[in-house]
């Protein structure tokens, strides 16, 4: 894998979500690293400094919110932005989000296409033309 590809870290305890999202992103030319809980995710992010993080909210060991809060508090990862996937109807307070770099919250069941569009928008700063029609 070439290092010029943008790197995304996906954190979710449900492997099927990891598979679906990584497949969509890899096929679109992103490099992907996955982790299964907030702690693993935090270590992977601190080590690899990805361009973007996609994380679930509810996970064992450490929640996605706690992970993102810790990421923002840590100088080396303070500027890494994140997208959060949550159960539908589950809302996170604005104050809690304030302590993180979560810039978008998508609810499950999510559309992989929409996740990809969001990632492209945030990482490449572009919107795929087909989506913009």
């Amino acid at each position, binding site marked *: *894998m070439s290092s010029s590809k943008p790197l995304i870290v996906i954190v979710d305890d449900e492997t*099927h979500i990891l*598979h*679906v999202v*990584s*497949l*969509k992103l*890899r096929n679109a030319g992103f490099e*992907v690293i996955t982790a299964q809980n907030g702690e693993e995710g935090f270590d992977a992010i601190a080590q690899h400094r990805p361009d973007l993080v996609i994380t679930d909210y509810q996970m064992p060991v450490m929640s996605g919110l706690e992970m993102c809060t810790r990421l923002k508090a840590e100088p080396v990862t303070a500027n890494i932005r994140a997208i959060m996937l949550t159960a*539908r109807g589950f809302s996170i307070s604005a104050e809690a989000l304030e302590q993180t770099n979560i810039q978008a919250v998508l609810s499950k*069941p*999510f*559309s*992989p*296409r*929409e996740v990809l569009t969001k990632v492209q928008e945030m990482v490449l700063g572009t919107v*795929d033309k*087909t*989506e913009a*029609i």
Partner: protein
Amino acid sequence: MTLMALNLESMSMDPIRRRIESLGITSVILAADSGKMRARIEGSARWIEHLLIDCAAFQATIHQAWQEIRTSPGADGGPVTLWPGVWLTPLLAAPHPRRRQTDPLPDHCVAALFVGTEFLHSEQFRLLCDMQRVDYQAALKRIDVAQLATRREADRVSTLIEWMQSDAADAERRGKEVYGLSSELGETYEELSLLYKLAMNMTVDQPPRHFIADACHELQQVVGMRWLAIQLVADDPRLNDLQGEVFAAGDLVLTHDQIRGVGLHLMNIGLDPNLPKVIDDIHSLGLPELSRQSSDLLVVPLATDNRLIGVLFGGQKLDPPGANLTTVDSKLCGALANSLSIFIENFMLYEDMQAMFMGTLHALTSAIDAKDSYTFGHSERVALMSRMLAEAAGLDGQVVERVYVAGLIHDVGKIGVPEAVLCKPGKLTAGEFEQIRMHPEIGARILRDIRQMKDIIPGVLSHHERWDGHGYPFGLAGAEVTELQSDEVTKEEVTELQSDEVTKEEVTELQSDEVTKLITPSLRHSVTSSSLLHSVTPSLLGGIPLFGRLIALADSFDAMSSTRTYRSRLEHGQVINEIRRCAGTQFDPDLASVFVELDFEPYRQMHRRHEIAAQQSDGGRSDGVTK
């Protein structure tokens, strides 16, 4: 996860090759070169192995052995003996025992090369030394015998390699499976998310037109087509005003009329109502404007009970560019078409029910109005003006429709009033007048048990109340204070609302009930009505309900604008002046000021229609214009 990009064979063989090399076993690459299978060394190897590989006779033996493997594959699965004490185990993607005759051998592969001590004692070793111009005795000294293999070792390692190959093939197959499942799951997520969005939209009370347009747009995005359209059939009256409608989304390559043409054509080509279809041969449709634009066309019928109600179609896949439409696309469109069909069917059923309901109401109210030819069309005109007033007063669309129904049904209680009284020319006796005054309560009682009329009843019951409290049946005054507003009502206001006619005894008698406490003395003659009022409008804390105030204006306006048994109609200007004059006494002053500004043209037209109809039905008795 990188399966897609890599050669599958090298993918599974590379780790095995690295492993056998780390065990000190030499691997060679076998590859076809000008029609001959040749071996070469890429990693590290021993001197004796280099010597062998460099020897043309050895290469010829390898080529010959390869042909034998090809013709009788996997005889025993063990190493192939090339020369005495020289064995080769090819690392084939499929393990020997399961390789089938029909599987062609690859034109290159990796193989493990073993050299055993017996080779050193063979004739071939001497020949090798001769051919490669190496001194036989020096060669023997140079070789570290301890590093040579035995046949047993070669056999065991070959078996291990076979197992590893089998495991690697399994792992690879599972990897492919996971990849396939992830792709399918991804599609399912798209489908789920799309259907979820649609379901969310369905619960929102939005016009079907918007819903279908949204669905069309969402699907075009999800499937990644350049354009997508939905055409509804033009000959199903159940579709009401959606008959023959076209919805389109995306980058429209055709004009609206062309899309309609394609849609109508597609519905006539004998589609199976339950099967989505990808038409690859667009030319066969004979639609030049379409075949110029798309190479294939997805067609999904919309059907309820096997009856075609529309067709969804679109073309030109954009994501990935230039791709053909797939079964995934038609599956997704099929799922959406299903929901859409159900939605449209529900809409039609709803419309049917609504039409039935309104038809019944109209029939019922016409029957009431027909009791007295002077009131022909009265209910419909009151409904019309109540609706216009409600709209102008800024009420919510749904409430406006309920006001219309209330206006239509407001006089239903007249069913219980004898025709002789209703149609009596000249002055009514006090008793007759009392009978007429009963109609709001009779109406409320008739409607009491109809769940769908709960919100209408207060309007029916209170349409003869007056702003100043001198109306009937309860003599309510002012605007009703609803529960929401009740906190704001001060004690002074409550006192003000109480009529000063209420005697002390009555107040004491009634004060246990917050509602009746606010009701004026006309309660005296209708205790039953008060409980009725209370049961249908629990929020009524006094004052005239909004529906009643709206209908009262429309009702009086129509009464004054129509000829009655006892008087001729008034001129429009007079009627308006009268309403202005009575604002704040008979009518809610705020609503009255809205009412006088209304556009009365629709009313005039309706009134004219009613007059003509009434004339035709009974010789012009109700003709108010000429009278």
